[in-house]
């Protein structure tokens, strides 16, 4: 499993394709959404938690599409499947890789978000970190599973968001609500139920992906 993650990381370090596109797209969405809300209005502070998640989600969707398309080019997927590995392990490795890329991109996107929306840096980063970690883990799991599924269809790139976004609705609601409450200064105790929901979502899709990946990649 670690060899698989290491392989993806090495490819990324050499090409920097996924990371660069994740990063730029995240920043661009932040920019577009900054245009959407009047910079002088009070609305910005209320909209901020939503904005960061929209940027994370849409950039992430594109990034995950890439991660499995890679394997399809030059038939790398066949090579992977020939390896004496449990299919579930491939899924977990891919999920871990996607999670790492997204976290790396967020290291730049979040400070930029703080900069554009004029928020206190340390406070925001500290409070967003647990939500981002839990949210991105579930998002990477469901995204990897459905990216593998949409790879098998004709309209590959379009299928991923269509399949994944409705199922990921609880993740988004929970992540945005938690971020909003934490940024408004609520304590962690006030959002435990949302954090539990996020953790449950992560667990459900890690297990579903791990068990069903075999059916997804079978020839």
């Amino acid at each position, binding site marked *: 499993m670690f060899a698989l993650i290491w392989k993806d990381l090495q490819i990324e370090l050499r090409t920097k394709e996924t990371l660069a596109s994740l990063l730029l797209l995240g920043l661009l969405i932040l920019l577009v959404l900054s245009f959407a809300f009047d910079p002088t209005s009070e609305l910005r502070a209320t909209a901020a938690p939503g904005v960061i998640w929209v940027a994370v989600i849409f950039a992430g969707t594109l990034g995950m599409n890439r991660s499995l398309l890679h394997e399809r080019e030059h038939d790398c997927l066949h090579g992977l499947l020939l390896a004496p590995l449990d299919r579930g392990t491939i899924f977990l490795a891919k999920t871990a890789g996607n999670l790492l890329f997204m976290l790396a991109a967020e290291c730049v996107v979040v400070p930029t978000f703080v900069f554009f929306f004029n928020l206190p840096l340390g406070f925001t980063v500290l409070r967003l970190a647990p939500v981002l970690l839990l949210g991105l883990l579930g998002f990477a799991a469901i995204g990897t*599973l459905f990216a593998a*599924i949409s790879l*098998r*269809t*004709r*309209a590959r790139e379009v*299928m991923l968001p*269509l*399949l994944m*976004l*409705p*199922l990921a*609705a*609880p993740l988004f*609601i*929970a992540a945005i*609500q938690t971020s909003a409450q934490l940024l408004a200064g609520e304590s962690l105790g006030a959002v435990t*139920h*949302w954090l539990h*929901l996020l953790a*449950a*979502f992560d667990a*459900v*899709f890690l297990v*579903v992906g791990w068990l*069903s990946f075999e*059916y*997804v990649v*079978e020839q």
Partner: protein
Amino acid sequence: MTETTARTRNATDVLLPPATIGAMMAALYLIFVVVPTDAFQGPVQRIFYVHMAMWLATFTAFGLVALASLMYLWRRAPEWDRRGRAAAELGLLFCTLGLTTGSIWAKPIWGTWWTWDPRLTLTLILWMIYAAYLLLRSLTTDPDQGASLAAILGVSGLLDLYLINRAVYWWRGIHPAVLVQRQGGSGLADPLMRVTLVVCMLAFFLLFLWLLRLRIGAARLQDTVEHLREQLTASA
């Protein structure tokens, strides 16, 4: 693949169409002639009987999709796949009708076509999941593979349902006004109202069962034709 091509006509197939039509006529008569007009909402409340009836069919259909998906992944029998697909199509149809009739009812009563009430939000998300399910089926290149991919979506949809439910209730849980209004507004005071509701639900449920059987039968024929064509091209 040993499938019988001749479809046996059993008692259910013979009785279902007249029963559905009879129940439908009775429901129409009850709604428009017999049942008293609601004291608060006026004639528009009559849409409630149809609206409620849609949900029974919708949720049975979506439950069936989940069951058929599980069975397909376990047993790999094409019959389960056909059942799942037919149920998803009909579930989406009744869900759309339910959302539409609900909106028509909501406009004069709540003064808006749509509110982000937890129940409405949940239904909308469900609608989207099953729309994606059908889209996935039509966009896969290999039908067998499409069946197992869709089954995975069907199963994860079921597992997700509880989380979606919790999330939308917590999300909008602070504004229960609509729900209270709904329960207060449509309390079925008259016993005739309750009878009408039951007959109406029965009529639409029978319609759902009839359509489901027809759809599964059509899918079975389609598969048989496909199978025969393959045999023909192979032997030619």
